[in-house]
């Protein structure tokens, strides 16, 4: 018996000794992000940091559908598994008021981050509540929704002729939403297994909202007033109703089975020769110019979200800022990493690796804009973006939007006006429940 006790104690002692020695030797930071290419680029950037400072950076990832759930499960348990998290812009409210994010306002002012990064990225990725000058994240990956299209289909002389004969103007990159619709209709040929357009329709997280926002904002509509939380007369305005009808109209020209489509399906629409045009985040475009992942890479072009009937031109914002988790034991080390990250040369490296930098200087540089076929469209888009609500209860607002808009879009239930009136009522009730505005 004594022998057993001794050996067990020795074992525990040994484990502890090993554990602490490893801890003392290696400084390491863990960053949590979703599983996609930019996370791999960030890991490469982290490797550079390790070379310079000896601090090991590990970028841990999880598939997009689980990202929100997994991150907040860890936050709610006050776990210190992650030192930093590259969170969605909508999380700012929940992250800051829930005490999950470290307040970075002093860091922001000390390093003048507001001057380094493009204004829209600071506004949407870092500040909460809007206009408060309190900052919770450093803009890391700029992103917005843009479009890719099949240049070979568009430039085919026969198609051009047929299009001109049918619609009375030249087939080209769409100048507005009407042209977008016409071109989608023109290329919709189920008998040839060719379809007009690929859009976002998935109702499980924010896909449907992002897709609809593209139409809504360009039609001059708004989700609501972000400072007073008034939604009546905004989300159910005539402009918003017209925008929803326009977005539903596009659904008619999508490939079959397009009722649960998000970024994977929309890129497939181009790689599998399904659609003439496809909506997607800029972050997913690198794989479209890569011959290995897109056989049509040479024939793929890109354009920014077109303006609506009144000339308004906006796009839905994606992208993320990096925040320090307040339960992390290594906040000082994390601050050091962020200080390194916002340096100009680091931002240049980040852009060269494939990351979408938010640094205004790098964005404006000709070398960035000419680096890829879509960088110029990205630069233009990043100055006219708008985002979803960032309040802590954003997930309820998203769910309500999905619940109302999806049956109308996909199932054809009711009218656009009824749908948006009902959504306005849902949102009003939710804001009332949490005592906001009004």
């Amino acid at each position, binding site marked *: 018996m004594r022998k057993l006790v001794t050996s067990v104690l020795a074992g525990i002692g040994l484990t502890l000794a090993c554990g602490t020695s490893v801890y003392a030797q290696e400084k390491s930071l863990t960053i949590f992000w979703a599983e996609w290419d930019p996370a791999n680029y960030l890991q490469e950037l982290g490797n550079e940091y390790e070379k310079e400072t000896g601090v090991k950076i590990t970028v841990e990832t999880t598939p997009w559908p689980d990202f929100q759930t997994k991150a907040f499960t860890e936050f709610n348990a006050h776990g210190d598994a992650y030192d930093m998290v590259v969170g969605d812009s909508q999380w700012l409210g929940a992250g800051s008021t829930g005490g999950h994010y470290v307040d970075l306002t002093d860091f922001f002012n000390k390093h003048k981050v507001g001057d380094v990064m493009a204004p829209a990225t600071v506004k949407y990725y870092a500040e909460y509540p809007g206009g408060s000058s309190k900052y919770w994240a450093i803009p890391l990956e700029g992103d917005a929704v843009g479009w890719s299209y099949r240049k070979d289909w568009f430039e085919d002389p026969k198609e051009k002729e047929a299009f001109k004969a049918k619609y009375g103007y030249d087939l080209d990159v769409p100048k507005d939403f009407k042209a977008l619709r016409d071109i989608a209709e023109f290329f919709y040929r189920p008998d040839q297994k060719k379809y007009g357009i690929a859009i976002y329709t998935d109702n499980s997280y924010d896909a449907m909202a992002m897709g609809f926002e593209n139409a809504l904002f360009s039609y001059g509509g708004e989700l609501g007033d972000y400072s007073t939380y008034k939604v009546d007369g905004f989300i159910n305005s005539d402009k918003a109703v017209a925008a929803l009808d326009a977005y539903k109209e596009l659904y008619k020209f999508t490939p079959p*089975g397009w009722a649960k489509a998000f970024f994977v399906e929309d890129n497939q629409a181009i790689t599998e020769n399904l659609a003439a045009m496809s909506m997607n985040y800029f972050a997913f475009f690198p794989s479209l110019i890569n011959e290995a992942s897109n056989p049509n890479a040479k024939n793929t072009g890109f354009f920014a979200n077109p303006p609506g009937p009144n000339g308004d031109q906006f796009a839905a914002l994606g992208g993320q800022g990096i925040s320090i988790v307040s339960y992390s034991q290594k906040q000082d080390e994390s601050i050091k990493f962020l200080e390194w990250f916002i340096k100009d040369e680091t931002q240049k490296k980040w852009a060269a690796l494939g990351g979408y930098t938010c640094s205004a200087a790098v964005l404006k540089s000709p070398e960035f804009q000419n680096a890829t076929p879509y960088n110029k469209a990205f630069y233009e888009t990043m100055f006219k973006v708008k985002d979803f609500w960032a309040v802590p209860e954003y997930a309820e607002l998203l769910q309500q939007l999905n619940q109302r808009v999806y049956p109308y879009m996909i199932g054809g239930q009711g009218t656009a006006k009824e749908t948006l009136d009902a959504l306005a009522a849902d949102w009003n009730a939710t804001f009332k429940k949490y005592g906001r505005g009004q």
Partner: protein
Amino acid sequence: MATTMITTLDRSSRAAARGLSDISIRNLFIIPTVLFLIVFNIFPLIYSLGYSFTDFRASTNASANFVGLQNYRDLLNDPYVWSNFAITAKYVIISVAGQLLVGFGVAMLLNRDIPLKGLLTTLLLLPMMLSMAVVGLFWKLLYDPSFGIINYALGLGTFEWLSDPKMALYAVALTDIWMWSPFVMLLSLAGLSAVPKHLYEAAAIDRAGPFYTFFRITLPLVAPILMIAVIFRTMEAFKTFDLAYILTTQPTAELISIRLYKMAFQEWQTGRSCALAYIVLIMVLAITNIYVKYLNKVKER
């Protein structure tokens, strides 16, 4: 004799030699299990009952306020939740009835002397040995309108199984039937082989027709074991989550467990989702109780 053998300890055993009584041995085995159940089942159950009367949100630091029956009132007045329940009921009926028909039918076919019967039975059991998530992913590919093998085999063109609001729930139920019919088949086979052969001989001597034999001999004798299959499958179908979650996002196929998941882990309405979980629990308990009552009645006959 047999019972005393089990309950008292053999005096010559090592345990008895160490001075352990049979009661302490029993406790040694049972107490850890009971503790485990209390810590991981009973305690969270009671704790969540407490939360269901509050507006607690796990994602914020705000303290939970007692709101009485507000959550239950809101939920039972929410037309979306009711439609989720209606969808779930429809799904349970379709999938359990389908499994019963297919499972019992196959069992009848197998309940005779045929070559390779053992191998055949084992192969038929394979679907229920797969993971639900894997089945969901496979069937999503099978149902695909562009390259799915189901449309190709049936010549349906680009029929949209999972994107069609009217079809989606049936498609999920069909997958569930494919997966769980073998379970019903297995139980039915056990029941069928237990029917005494002399009853069939007597029926044959009396020149009873096959329908008469089936409805008066086979079915009544297999009924109790079929009821057990129905109870298990109803409870499971009521709780279906992974299969439906992976296959489709159609609101017309949103089962109550998916609604519950979204409420709890996407919207973080912890208090309200606890209340919904309790409503579901009470419903499952009630349905199961009705079945058990009926089962006892069937057994008495």
